[in-house]
C-alpha cells in the first residue's frame, strides 16, 4: 500500500508542474505589472521600471519562472503586494481552517450520501426512495452559501444551538472545534451528499442484480449480511470516483461558506486579493488548493485498491 502511494505521488508531479505553469502564467496574463499594482496609478514609468528591476521582472520569463518555482517548492510564494506580508505565512495560518471545513463537509456528504443512497436502493420504487430522490434533486440545486446563510440564522441566531460565527482550532479544544464546524460542514456537505447518494443508489442497484449476490444468498446468508458484506464494498467503487471529484468541490465551497460563518480561513483573504489584484497571494492560494486536491485524488486512487482487488494486482 505504501509503495503504491509513493508511486502515485511521484506520478502526480507532472500535474503539479502544469498547474504551476498556469499559476505563474496568471500574472503575465494580467494587464500591467506587479510594480504598477504596488506603486499605484500615480507612479512614473521610471519608478515602475526601477521596481521591475528590483523584483526581477525585467529578466527572461523562463528565468522568472525558475526563480518563482524554486522558491515555491521551498514554501516561499513571495510577499503580498498590498500588505507586504509573506504569502506563505498567510497560507499556513489560514488554510488549516479552510481544510477543516472542507473535511467536515466531506464527512457530512459521505455519511448522508451513503446512508441515503443505500436506503433509496433497498427501498427502490417505494415512498422513501421517492422522497430521497426529491431531496437529492433539491440538494443538487440549492446553493451552499444560501444554505449556510439560512443555517447560520435559524440555528445560530434565532436558536443558539450552534455557534453562528467563529472558529476554534483543534489544538485548543477538539470538541469546540467540531462544535464550530457542524453548521458550516452541513451547509457545505449537503450538495455533495446528493451527488454521492445518487451514485450510491445507482451503484448498489447495479450490484444487487449481479450473479454473485444471488450466489451469496444461495449460501443461506441473511439479506442484511448480503447487502452489507457482499454488495456495499462493490457498490462503493463508483462512489469513490465521485468522492474524488467532491474533494475539489469542497475546497472551493469551503472558501465561500467559511465567510458566512465568519471563520478565519483563506476565503476573505483571497476575495480581498482578487479585488486588489494581489497576485502573489492568488498564486499561492491556487497552488496550495491544487496540491491539496491532487493529493486527495491520489489518496482516493490508492483506496481503489482496497475496494477492488483487481486494481491491486495489475
Amino acid at each position, binding site marked *: 500500500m505504501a509503495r503504491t502511494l509513493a508511486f502515485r505521488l511521484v506520478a502526480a508531479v507532472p*500535474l503539479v508542474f*502544469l*498547474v504551476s505553469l*498556469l499559476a505563474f502564467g*496568471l500574472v503575465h*496574463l*494580467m494587464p500591467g505589472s506587479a510594480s504598477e499594482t504596488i506603486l499605484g496609478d500615480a507612479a512614473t514609468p521610471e519608478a515602475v521600471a526601477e521596481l521591475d528591476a528590483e523584483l526581477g521582472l525585467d529578466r527572461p520569463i523562463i528565468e522568472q519562472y525558475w526563480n518563482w518555482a524554486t522558491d515555491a517548492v521551498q514554501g516561499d510564494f513571495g510577499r503580498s503586494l498590498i500588505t507586504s506580508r509573506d504569502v506563505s505565512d498567510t497560507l499556513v495560518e489560514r488554510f488549516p481552517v479552510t481544510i477543516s471545513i472542507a473535511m467536515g463537509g466531506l464527512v457530512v456528504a459521505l455519511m448522508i450520501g451513503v446512508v441515503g443512497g443505500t436506503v433509496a436502493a433497498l427501498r427502490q420504487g417505494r415512498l422513501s426512495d421517492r422522497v430521497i430522490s426529491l431531496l437529492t*434533486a*433539491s440538494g*443538487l*440545486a*440549492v*446553493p451552499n*452559501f*444560501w444554505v449556510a*446563510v*439560512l443555517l447560520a*440564522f435559524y440555528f445560530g*441566531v*434565532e436558536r443558539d444551538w450552534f455557534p453562528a460565527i467563529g472558529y476554534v482550532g483543534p489544538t485548543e479544544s477538539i470538541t469546540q472545534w467540531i462544535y464550530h464546524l457542524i453548521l458550516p460542514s452541513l451547509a457545505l456537505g449537503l450538495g455533495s451528499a446528493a451527488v454521492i447518494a445518487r451514485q450510491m443508489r445507482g451503484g448498489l442497484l447495479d450490484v444487487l442484480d*449481479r*450473479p*454473485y449476490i*444471488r*450466489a*451469496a*444468498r*444461495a*449460501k*443461506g*446468508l*441473511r439479506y442484511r449480511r448480503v447487502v452489507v458484506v*457482499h454488495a456495499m*464494498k*462493490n457498490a462503493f467503487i463508483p462512489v469513490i470516483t465521485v468522492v474524488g471529484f467532491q474533494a*475539489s468541490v469542497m*475546497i*472551493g465551497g469551503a*472558501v465561500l461558506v467559511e*465567510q*458566512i460563518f465568519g471563520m478565519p480561513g483563506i476565503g476573505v483573504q*483571497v*476575495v480581498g*486579493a*482578487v*479585488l486588489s*489584484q494581489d*497576485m502573489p497571494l*492568488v498564486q499561492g*492560494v*491556487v497552488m496550495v*488548493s*491544487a496540491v491539496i*486536491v*491532487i493529493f486527495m485524488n491520489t489518496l482516493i486512487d490508492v483506496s481503489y485498491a482496497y*475496494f*477492488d*482487488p*483487481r486494481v491491486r*494486482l495489475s
Partner: protein
Amino acid sequence: MRSILHRLVARPAGFIPLFWLAIVGFCALLPALVMTHDPNAADFGAILEGPSGEHWFGTDDFGRDTFSRVVDAARPAAMAGLQAVSISLVLGLPIGLFVGYAGGWWDRIVMRIVDAIFSLPGLILAFAIVAILGPGLTNAMYSVGFLFALRIIRLVRGMVLSVREEPFIEAARLSGAPTATVLSRYLLPNMMGPLIVQVTISFAAVLLIEAALSFLGLGVQQPDATWGSMLREARSLQRDNPWIAWPPGLAITFTVLAFNTLGDAYRDVLTEGPGGRAKAAKRGASLGLAQGTTAVSDADPADPNALLSVRNLTVTVPTSAGPAPAVRQLSFDMRPAEVVGLVGESGSGKTVSALAVAGLLPRGVTIDPSSQIHFDGEQLVGKTEADMSNVRGTGIGMIFQDPTASLNPALTVGYQLAEPLRIHHGLSKKDAIDRAVELLDRVGVNNPRQRLKDFPHQFSGGMAQRVMIAMALASEPSLIIADEPTTALDVTTQRQVLELLVELCEDLGMAMLFITHDLGVVAEVCDRAVVMYAGQAVETGDVYDLFAAPDHPYSRALLASVPLLDGDEERLVTIPGRVPGPGEQIAGCRFGARCELVHEACTTTLVELITLPRDGRSSRCLLAGASTESNP
C-alpha cells in the same frame, strides 16, 4: 427533433421545468409586465416588511419591493447564463472537435492541460480569472465560460473519439471530403443530443457559480442586482426581516433544479427512443392462467418418500404487457440421492423453476400462493426470507451458470467459502478455514490452503466452478440445484466438472436437480428427467426409457437436435420456430405451432399431462402412448 420535443413535454419531468423556465424567461424579457413596483424605488415608510398584499415578498432596508427585485434580477441571471454558456461553446466545441479528430500530440497536450485545470477547484480558478480581468458580471461570466469550455472539450472529444471510427465517417473521409465537412456534416449531428444535455446542465452550474461570485461581491456590481447579490444584502438584514433571504434563494434553487431536471428528462427521452413506455402499457391485454387441472398433481399427492415434492408450481414474471406465468403448474418429485434433469430450450421456464425451489427469484417474480414446494416435508412456499436463508444454508446448495460472475470480486475465495461455515455451522474462524481447505481439496483445487487467499479473478472458469461447488457443499446439503453448471466452461473442463458433480452426489448421498438444455448431458448424469416447454412439463420419465422411446414430439425433436458426430461430419438438427413467451395465450397445445404431428384437435383442446402405462412416465400430448410404439 420535433418528436423529441413532444415526448419531452409529455412527461412531468420535462413539462414542469420548461414551464418554470418560461416564467423566468418572460421575467427576463418583459419584467415590466410582471413587477408590481419599481425595483429600485426606495420607500422609507415601509422598510423590512414581511409579506403582505402590497408587498408579496416583503421589502428590504430601503423599502424596495422584494418581489419586483427578484423579478428584475431574472434578466442579469439569464444574460449571465447565456454569455457563459455561449463562451464555453465557442471555445469548447471547436477545440474538442479538433483535438478528438486530430488525435496524436495535439490531443495529448490539450487534454493534459485540461486535466491540470480540472485539478483546481472551479471557484478558485474563477477567482484567479476575475483577479486578472477585474470584478464585474461580464468578467465573471468570461471566467465561468472558460471553466465550462473545459467540460465541453472533454465531452466533445470523447464523443468524437467514439464516433470517429464508425464506418460512415470512415467512408466520408475516404471519399475525400474535407475535414471541416466531415466534422460539421457527419460528426456534429451525431453529438447534438448529448451536447444539448450538457448545455442544459451547464446552465444550472453557471447560475450557481454566478450566484456565488455575486454573493462574494465579485460578480454583479451595485446598483444592479442578481439573486446572488440579493442574498449578500439579505445576510445583514435577516435579523430584522427573516423573510428576506428566502425569495432570491428559492429563485436560484428552482431555476437550477429546472435546468437539471430538464437535462435529465432530455437524456431519458434520447435513450428511450421512439415508442417507449406508452405503447407497452397499451398492449397490456388481460392475461390469465389457462383453466384446468393437471392430471398428475391431482392424482398424486405429495410423495411422502420424496426429498423434494413440487406441486402446481406457478411462477409469474413481469413482462412489457403485465405479469405473465413463466412456469405453469409444474409438478415433479425427487427422491433422496436421485439426480433429476430439468431439460428444455431457453424460455422453457427451467431456470425460473429452479430459482423458485431455492427461493431466489429476482425482484418482481412471484410464486403463486397455491403452489406447493415440499422439501424434507416442509412447505417452502410462503416461508419468510429469513427462514428460506436457513433452508438454503443447511439443506439446499446451488451452483450457477457463470462461475466467475457468481463469485464476489471484492472478497477472497477463502472468506466466501468460510462464511457459510461460520454462520450456519458455528465454526470458529480457524476451523472454518480448515474445513474450507478440505472442501477445496475435495473438489480438486490444487494447493487449497494457498488458494484461499486468492481473489476470484485469479481463478480460471473451471476452477471457479469447483470453488462454487465447494461453496454449495459447505452447507452439507441434501439437495444440490445445478443451473447449467457447465455452459460457460470450455469443452474439456465441462466433462471434468460433470464427473465431479456425479461423483460427489454418489459419495455424499446428495440429490441433484440438474438444469440443462443439453440432452446429451442428461443422459450421462441423470436418473430421471422432466422435459419442459413454454413453462409446462411436457414429458417426465426415467432417462433410459425417455431416450429409448421419447413420447412427446418435443422430446423427440430435442433428441434429434443433439449434435451427433457421424464420422467427421457434424449434423445439427434444429427445431424450427420459437418458444412462445410467458404471456402468450395459446388455445390447445403450447407446442402445436412447431409440432410435426399437429392436427386439428391440438389447436382447440387443452392438453394435460397423461400418465403412460409405463412406470412413472407421463406425456402432455393428445397422441400420448400412441407414438411410442412407432418409435424404436
